[in-house]
């Protein structure tokens, strides 16, 4: 059974008299351990798609199944638990909390976890993750004291904190130079090798080319779905 199943997902925005079909019936399956890139022109609906995948937004219609959950039927508390435990979301704009240190940012998901883990174990895991992304020596730095690439690495560590099976990244390299982008891509490949399912959005053909599978979107529809 696939990990993610999207069938005929639609998202309609209504602004006054104008309706925008951001997603006009999207269907696809993503299996476990897949490494997928989503590509398409600006405004084609990639972010809308990622937000629905990440349980940050609800589709106007259509069915979304993640693991055993029928996501479209879930209530806000269950969605929060899925965001906490089953999905790690990485944003283009990093979205670290500015008043917290790198370490505190990585620990943040634990505060919303429903199963109790000792504080010492949590901290050990956070430090291990920071070590893995090469920023252990920056753990007391706040986001403003780090480069974009470093912030995005901290954001990835945060997404990994609860050890979710799925990592979703909406243009994780969009704000980075090629060196920073490369580092992020390498980390994602490593995570994939470790068994995570990874879905990321990119504009960049060379970065998209690294994925095992590319889903192309245009005007809210899937126009191509190819395996490299």
């Amino acid at each position, binding site marked *: 059974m696939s990990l993610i199943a999207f069938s005929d997902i639609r998202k309609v925005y209504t602004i006054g008299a104008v309706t925008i079909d951001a997603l006009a019936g999207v269907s696809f399956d993503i299996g476990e351990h897949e490494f997928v890139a989503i590509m398409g022109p600006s405004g084609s609906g990639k972010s809308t798609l990622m937000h629905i995948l990440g349980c940050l*937004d609800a589709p106007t219609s259509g069915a979304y199944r993640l693991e055993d959950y029928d996501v479209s039927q879930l209530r806000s508390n269950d969605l929060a638990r899925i965001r906490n435990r089953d999905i790690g979301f990485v*944003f283009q704009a990093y979205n670290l909390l500015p008043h917290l240190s790198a370490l505190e940012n990585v620990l943040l998901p634990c505060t*919303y976890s429903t199963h109790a883990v000792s504080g010492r174990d949590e901290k050990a895991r956070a430090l291990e993750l920071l070590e893995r992304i090469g920023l252990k020596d920056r753990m007391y730095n706040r986001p403003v004291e780090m480069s974009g690439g470093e912030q995005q690495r901290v954001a990835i560590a945060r997404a990994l904190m609860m050890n979710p099976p799925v990592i979703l990244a909406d243009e994780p390299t969009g704000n980075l130079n090629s060196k920073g982008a490369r580092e992020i891509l390498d980390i994602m490949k490593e995570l994939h090798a470790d068994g995570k399912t990874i879905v990321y959005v990119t504009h960049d053909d060379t970065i998209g080319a690294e994925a095992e599978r590319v889903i192309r979107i245009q005007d809210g529809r899937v126009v191509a779905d190819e395996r490299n």
Partner: protein
Amino acid sequence: MDLRDSFRNATRAIWAAKMRSFLTMLGIIIGIAAVVMLMAVGNGTKQSILSRMQSSGSGNLYLTAGARSNVLMGGNPEGGAGGFAASRAGVSSGAEITAQDLTYIEARVTYSVVVSPTNQTNITIKNGNTTMSGTGIFATPTYFQVENVTIADGRMISDGDVSNRTRNVVIGNTVQTTLFPNESAVGQLIRINGASYKVVGVAASKGETVGSSVDTAIVLPFSVGEKSFGIAHNRVQRTTIECVDPTQTKVVIAEITDILTLKHKKVDFTIQDVAAMTALVTSSMTILTTLLAAIGGLSLLVGGIGIMNIMLVSVTERTREIGIRKALGARERDILVQFLIESSLLSISGGILGIVVSVLGSDFVVSRFTTTAVTGSSILLAVGFSIAVGVFFGVYPARTAARLKPVEALRYE
């Protein structure tokens, strides 16, 4: 999210905007201080009035001439120096209480009573070159018992003094210290309205009481009044009647009323009950205190609206943070609790500071002008109120925050 984390987050957020948090708290500080201080003034006033009233014994009745249609509170019917003179409306002229009336009453009342007839007049007291004005109280030995006046030095007026019209007097504490600063007055001669009297005793100080204070008074034998001070023969201005069993006061009032009405053939007298007046004062002062607290409560309300305002600003400013927290798994409840704790913390700290301000304020500032009493219950009320204000005015902003949709909150710039 456990509560300890929530508290740490909340203190952090409050501390991050120190000035703004303090200004917000100021509303609560002022509100709580106003409530506590106004209640302190109310309670203080009540306590001081009650202590003055009760210093003359709570089982006492006052019998005076003239039927009064509108008697609120007792006091000294002739002078009214205590500030609570009874209304004189409806005093029928010509009515009087005589010594015979009192003997008549004493003989017929079934419960045992102690009767103390008194007359009063203003006098001038002189020793050598020192002169002071005071009150002359013409009384019998029972006066000392019913008014709880004790003798600090010497002796009381005796029955012999009364029957022989002896010019022996007991002086108040202030009279003693004014006229004889360096020595005991007992055995000395003083001049009252020009005539010579012998001091046989000094009364212990009682402080201010309702009516005239014994401290600035001179107690003279009852009979001396009509002999040397022009008080009409047999006339008694005010009689204090002490019920030996205070629980029977009501019955005694009824009996005396019946006895005297029968004798005078009309109700041309008034009996006042100290216990009833005390109850009246207590209830009216409680109303006053509540009113004062309500006025203070208004400023607390304004402070609460200030908290709500600042929390709404804070929610708007931190919309993106809320979105991030939700993306990481925060439930609506987590966000709600976070903002509620923050608003409660603001108002509780404001409340505690307000209590400190009010205790200092009423001890060092307000107490110079009036009696204050900060009571435990008013502090409890203040704390409870400030928690309630924080929660009540925090709920709306916190719910607004909790219900934000994750994507929309994340999109917020």
